[in-house]
């Protein structure tokens, strides 16, 4: 396939909306990076307690939210994610004691930067979810999915050579 024809259009975002409008079947892809000790465990608890949430969420396990390199987030958007979530232990509860304090600064700055570049705030979120908060885990997943569905597919920062905007 030639690069040219797949380059996202300038109005990629709006194009996405239209696509969504026509194609009811569109389902957002949301990548959730969860720290192993709190949020991923919270996800396990949600599972053990059978707390349902949309299957749009796909979790990637990282040891600590402070492992989150902003490049991973951009990469996800580039490859077609419609939303990205980073979840970690509540400040003060970090398994590595200080990781999430650093994350709070790093990702606050980064969130504002990509919003400045034109990404809708809802598309990138950071949440603190403890290992005992299975309910919060599923709640956050439901909320995020709903928010992204309302926004429609993401064309911004996306590289058309990968996942198509359906």
């Amino acid at each position, binding site marked *: 396939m030639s690069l040219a024809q797949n380059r996202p259009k300038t109005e990629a975002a709006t194009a996405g909306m239209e696509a969504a409008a026509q194609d009811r079947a569109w389902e957002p892809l949301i990548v959730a990076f969860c720290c192993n000790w709190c949020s991923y465990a919270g996800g396990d608890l949600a599972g053990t307690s059978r707390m349902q949430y949309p299957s749009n969420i796909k979790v990637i396990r990282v040891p600590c939210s402070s492992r989150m390199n902003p490049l991973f987030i951009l990469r996800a958007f580039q490859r077609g994610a419609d939303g990205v979530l980073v979840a970690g232990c509540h400040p003060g509860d970090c398994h590595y004691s200080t990781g999430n*304090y650093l994350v*709070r600064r790093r990702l606050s700055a980064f969130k504002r*930067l990509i919003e*400045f*570049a*034109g990404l809708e705030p809802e598309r990138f979120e950071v949440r603190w979810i403890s290992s005992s908060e299975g309910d919060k885990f599923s709640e956050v997943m439901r909320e995020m999915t709903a928010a992204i569905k309302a926004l429609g597919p993401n064309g911004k920062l996306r590289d058309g*050579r990968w996942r198509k905007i359906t």
Partner: protein
Amino acid sequence: MAENNVDYSAKIRGVVAQDLLSGRIDLLLGWEKGHYWWQSRPLFARDQADLERLAWDSFCAVNLSRYLVDELKENKKVGVLLKGCDARALNRLVQDNMVPRERVIAYGLPCPGMLNYAALLEAAAGRKPDGIAEENGQVTVRGGGVELTVPRDRVLLDKCRHCLYPNPVHCDQLLLTPVGERQAPERFSAVQERESLSSDARFAYWEKQLERCLRCYACRQACPYCSCRECFVEQEQPRWLSKASQPSENFMFHLIRAYHGAGRCIDCGECQRACPVGIPLQELNRKLIKDINELYGHYEAGLDPGQEPPLLTYRPDDPAAFSEK
């Protein structure tokens, strides 16, 4: 300043000549005139002859600190002429262990701000200027037998118009008398203007800007905080991003380039000045400076080498740009 700065150049030359010829330094980093009268380029002076070419005028925008990293590999001790921004750049490099401070002699040059050729062209109202004269805050542009005088502030480089620290900090020797403190109320106005737009409008704006990017990396080469031995854009393992000049790749490059400067960028604007296609890169850097100052307390990179960069530290009660419910 033009006519007087002859003496300035002489004065500077006088001081550094002693150190260079006495062998106190092996090399002096300064400026010399380029092909055009409106260009001053880096000078690498090793002897009297080289020193003769040393020039200090309103076009010495190039940040010399950055050259220290390489020059110190070959030279034991290097002297360097530093404007306000260059001095803060040196502090950053020292803070990042890129430059051993003890092997540098920093000559401080209080800086009235450098001139922007494009602005001069404008001031010349179409005629091709062949030189300028400066006197108490006025710049007179000569060209086609006509002389047009404009206030100096109007023809400054953007980076200088918003400069808060024209006087070099932490120098070994201050060569000229300090200039007055400056205010920069407009520093974040462009950022704020952009912030007021809708997400889509902002995206459209940046997409249009970044479409032009040639991925020549001049911004990176000019930047005093881009001190990596190998930049992430060139890495094969992992391949962070492809070399293709492609919208999402360009976003990725520029967002991360800016993010790598978070809490480290001294706002010297060399990246923007170096950009051949005129992308307003400094806006991205200033956005980060502005937000980090708002969220985590005022911090000016390079001002105080002892102060920890904001992203390397934290306070348990820090605010967040996301919901902590």
